[in-house]
């Protein structure tokens, strides 16, 4: 470990300046105008659904839960309804993407994200503070010299942790929802788990957004908005990745069975959303007033 860091500090810091010339290998039409395919519409939709659902649930969750926001807004039923409907919409969107989207692309992306090789381990090791100079991290340019595939090791770690957090959010959120009614289901750590997932998730998302908007990685932003990145950027930051110039498209269109399942998912999600809202607002047919016998309310006598 220490040796790695030393090697990085002495051997690579100056070797590759950030402005290293691009060497596009694919789709080299002319100069830097060439772009390569990075994310298909399925992955971009999945990212948009995941990201916007996170933001909506973070905002409403904080209003529900942060003391000063809860006191300022105080509209708990509305916040809870938005929070829970967003959760249903999020899960529905994930299911629909898996059913109707480009499954080949999703499988490839998952494979790209979950596999780590020696370069990834080295990349991560060099992100850690050096033991020689505590608190000092190597400049990005030094780390960037370790060749990375379609995703760098940091992006992989981020995705793995976010995927795990998603499961933990769903489990703890469901238990919180059920536990309000039935306190037997109020496990000691339900709230703590939802809290920790929120804190870790928020820090990761803040870092993710910061990296995505930072000037050095600005070209990568096009990958998740338009689907393509400059070929030069891909060659510099992801040299072990062999991208194709255009979206190869889905291997096969989704069949009748999957489309039928998608309809079922939509029906279930809409039904769940309606039930949740009715549940939170009590519906219109429920008794709104206490069933105090009228005679008791009109007792005569001095008041």
């Amino acid at each position: 470990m220490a040796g790695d860091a030393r090697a990085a500090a002495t051997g690579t810091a100056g070797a590759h300046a950030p402005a290293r010339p691009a060497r596009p290998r694919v789709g080299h039409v002319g100069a830097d105008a060439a772009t390569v395919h990075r994310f298909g519409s399925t992955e971009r939709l999945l990212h948009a659904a995941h990201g916007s659902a996170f933001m909506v649930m973070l905002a409403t969750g904080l209003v529900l839960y942060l003391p000063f926001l809860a006191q300022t807004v105080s509209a708990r039923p509305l916040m809870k309804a938005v929070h829970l409907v967003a959760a249903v919409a999020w899960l529905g969107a994930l299911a629909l993407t898996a059913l109707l989207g480009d499954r080949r692309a999703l499988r490839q992306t998952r494979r790209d994200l979950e596999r780590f090789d020696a370069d990834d381990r080295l990349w991560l090791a060099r992100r850690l503070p050096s033991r020689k100079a505590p608190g000092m991290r190597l400049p990005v340019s030094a780390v960037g010299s370790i060749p990375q595939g379609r995703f760098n090791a940091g992006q992989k770690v981020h995705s793995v942790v976010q995927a795990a957090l998603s499961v933990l959010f769903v489990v703890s959120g469901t238990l919180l929802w059920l536990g309000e009614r039935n306190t037997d289901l109020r496990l000691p750590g339900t709230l703590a788990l939802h809290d920790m997932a929120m804190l870790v998730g928020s820090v990761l998302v803040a870092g993710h957004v910061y990296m995505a908007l930072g000037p050095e990685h600005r070209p990568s932003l096009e990958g998740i908005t338009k689907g393509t990145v400059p070929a030069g950027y891909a060659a510099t930051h992801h040299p072990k990745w062999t991208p194709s110039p255009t979206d190869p498209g889905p291997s096969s269109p989704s069949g009748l069975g999957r489309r039928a399942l998608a309809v079922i998912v939509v029906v279930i999600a809409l039904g769940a959303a309606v039930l949740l809202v009715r549940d939170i607002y009590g519906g219109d047919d429920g008794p709104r007033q206490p069933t105090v016998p009228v005679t008791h309310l009109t007792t005569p006598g001095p008041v």
Partner: protein
Amino acid sequence: MVSDVADSDPPDGRPVGRRAFLGLVAGGLTSLVWGGAAMDVAGKSTMLVPEGLRAAIPFGQGWRIYAVNPPYPRLDPATWRLRIDGLVARPMALTYADLLRLPRARQTSDFHCVTGWSVDDVRWTGVRFSDLLAAARPLPSARALTFISAEDPYVDSLTLKQAMAPDAMLAHAMDDEPLTRPHGAPVRVVMPQMYGYKGVKWLNRITVTDRAVDGYWQQRGYDRDAYVEGSNGR
């Protein structure tokens, strides 16, 4: 060392991420058992920071105040009356001054919300229900109290037996200050053994009945006897 491992790697790496994912999920789920204790420690440690700052800490021991029909009712203690009616020999309407003249009780108790948060060691000042009801004289058929809030349609009830618990009271002061509007001014029900929704705020009427009636949250499926007991990590 690194190159040794690299030799055994398949060309596109090993699916370490999948194992890490499963490990994180499994590890995270164990916190369902220990998370409550950890949060209790974290929450208590936030008591060292000022309340204003604490209100910005997610796991802090701050009040999260909800209303079912915002904004909070604004009741003027000068004109406010607490009506006590129903199965009583002498229905009455107490003024705020009347209430302050009744025997005063003090207690320090923990407050638990059914949504999961808690505030420890809240100091309440108020009137025990036995003292409150003494003048109105509940009839022999009286079994329960229905608390009606100025925040329509919020109501809840306690049986007389529950209301006579040694730590149940009608509070008019919290932490040695008169109750503030967000906390239910001028008076609220305090029932520390049960979740907070049983403690009706902005109270303006107590109706004595022959049975406990469904309150606002019970009409929505919540427990009527919302005892905290062992739940909520306590």
